[in-house]
């Protein structure tokens, strides 16, 4: 007989069921409703892909997300390498904590802080300022899975390569980097999908440039009143993230990203 979960889980599980999981069912239902509300329809989903005004936002948001992914990957890799495999036993935890701490500061506060430095550099709101903001916001999300992958590489793999005549360069490029690939894939998938939902950074730093799917959802719900299309967009992003997170968790051997 399979062991059953105990009742101690009930308070947390019931609260999450009612106020985290149930809302997503309501959201999915809403995405199948038209303003008139006559039965179930796929119209909202078709609108997202057919209406050029919406689809253009999806494409430009994908471009912003792609650039954010590449930039955070390039910045995170060397730092993850240093902290995971080269830092001292006292230095490592402090550097890790310093790098992850800004992640806990709300995006609104970080975007506003970034505005001060952008003005100091003589720049103003616009595409470039927004991209700096996106990279600032998503760097830790890229860093963490890469760091975790690098930390898991057994010392024996590196030692074996050295004994067999690999140079330090070979070790980095042909042992460590390939073994970090799961972390790179996980970080890239998370940053790509999460940055599409970002609306605070474009609103505070983008000026008139830069409009993401997140910005679109924000306007459809808080100023437009077009709930159906907004719900369809939110469902598509939620589904993509759920699938990605599930696949990544399975690849990591059932171990979740944190």
């Amino acid at each position, binding site marked *: 007989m399979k062991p059953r979960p105990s009742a101690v889980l009930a308070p947390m599980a019931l609260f999450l069921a009612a106020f985290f999981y149930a809302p997503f069912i309501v959201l999915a239902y809403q995405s199948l409703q038209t303003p008139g509300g006559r039965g179930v329809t796929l119209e909202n989903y078709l609108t997202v892909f057919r209406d050029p005004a919406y689809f253009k936002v999806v494409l430009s948001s994908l471009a912003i997300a792609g650039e954010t992914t590449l930039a955070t990957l390039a910045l995170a890799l060397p*730092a993850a390498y240093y902290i995971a495999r080269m830092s001292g036993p006292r230095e490592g935890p402090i550097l890790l904590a310093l790098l992850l701490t800004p992640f806990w500061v709300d995006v609104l506060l970080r975007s506003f802080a970034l505005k001060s430095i952008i003005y100091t550099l003589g720049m103003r709101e616009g595409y470039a300022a927004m991209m700096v903001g996106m990279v600032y916001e998503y760097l830790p999300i890229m860093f963490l899975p890469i760091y975790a992958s690098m930390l898991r590489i057994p010392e024996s793999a590196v030692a074996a390569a050295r004994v067999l005549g690999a140079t330090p360069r070979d070790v980095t490029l042909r042992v460590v980097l390939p073994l970090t690939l799961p972390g790179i894939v996980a970080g890239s998938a998370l940053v790509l999908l999460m940055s599409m939902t970002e609306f605070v950074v474009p609103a505070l730093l983008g000026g008139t440039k830069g409009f993401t799917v997140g910005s679109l959802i924000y306007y459809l719900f808080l100023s437009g009143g077009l709930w159906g299309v907004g719900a369809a967009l939110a469902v598509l992003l939620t589904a993509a993230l759920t699938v990605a997170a599930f696949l990544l968790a399975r690849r990591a051997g059932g171990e979740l990203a944190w």
Partner: protein
Amino acid sequence: MVEAGRRLARLYTYALIAALYAPIVVMAAYSFDDSKFFGVWGGFTARWYRLLAHDPQAWEALRNSVAVAVASALISTALALPAALSTRKVDRDLASLLTYPPVIMPEITEAVALMIMFLKLGFPLGVVSVVIGHTAFNVAYAYVALTPAGSSGARLAMAARTLGAGPLEAFLRVAVPVSMPGIVAALALTFMMSFTDFTKTLFTKGPGFVTLPILIWNRARRPGLSPYTSQPAIAALSTVLVAMSIAVAFTFTLYQARRQPGRGGA
């Protein structure tokens, strides 16, 4: 050659970390700037903080933020504590499965979904809906902060039971004191997350309810004539919130990083 590469990597890492904190330091500096705009230094002043101290809207927002954060911290920690005290594998697996999505799901989708549900149910948006919204993600963070200390507390309580302690005695005199570092961490973390939360609040607050981050958002988007909406005045308010976030988050992430090499905070 190897040593040179290591030094370069270290230099890069330190520079990257410095760059992460630079905006915060610069913003804090401008909160003492006598000019009204970022990028222009008009000399040192504390007048923006004095302005803040006499700002009735900021005081109202502070009261609301404290009320929401205290309620959400207490409720989420209380909901997560029993689960975190379980030592059974089946419980831990189910709990981590349940608490993973609230951490990974982008806030805006979660917030929009909750807003629709409240409006469909005819539930009035305001302080209660905001507390519920915050607790829905906070409970996951509370669970993560509670688990390590919680499970050792539970194991020692079982030992106390075999040595003759009653169930209530084992819980109150062993499990709770041993779990205390986890309880404190959970309360501090959830209070901070709720106190500085913007997105979830924006969608679940309804008209008229203002917290400190909402006030910052309203003012940052209409920079202009009133002294309250000038950039250094907003910077003063933001600096206070950022300082609090960093103090709590750094303590927590360092504790996590030291306890379990290989695992960061987040």
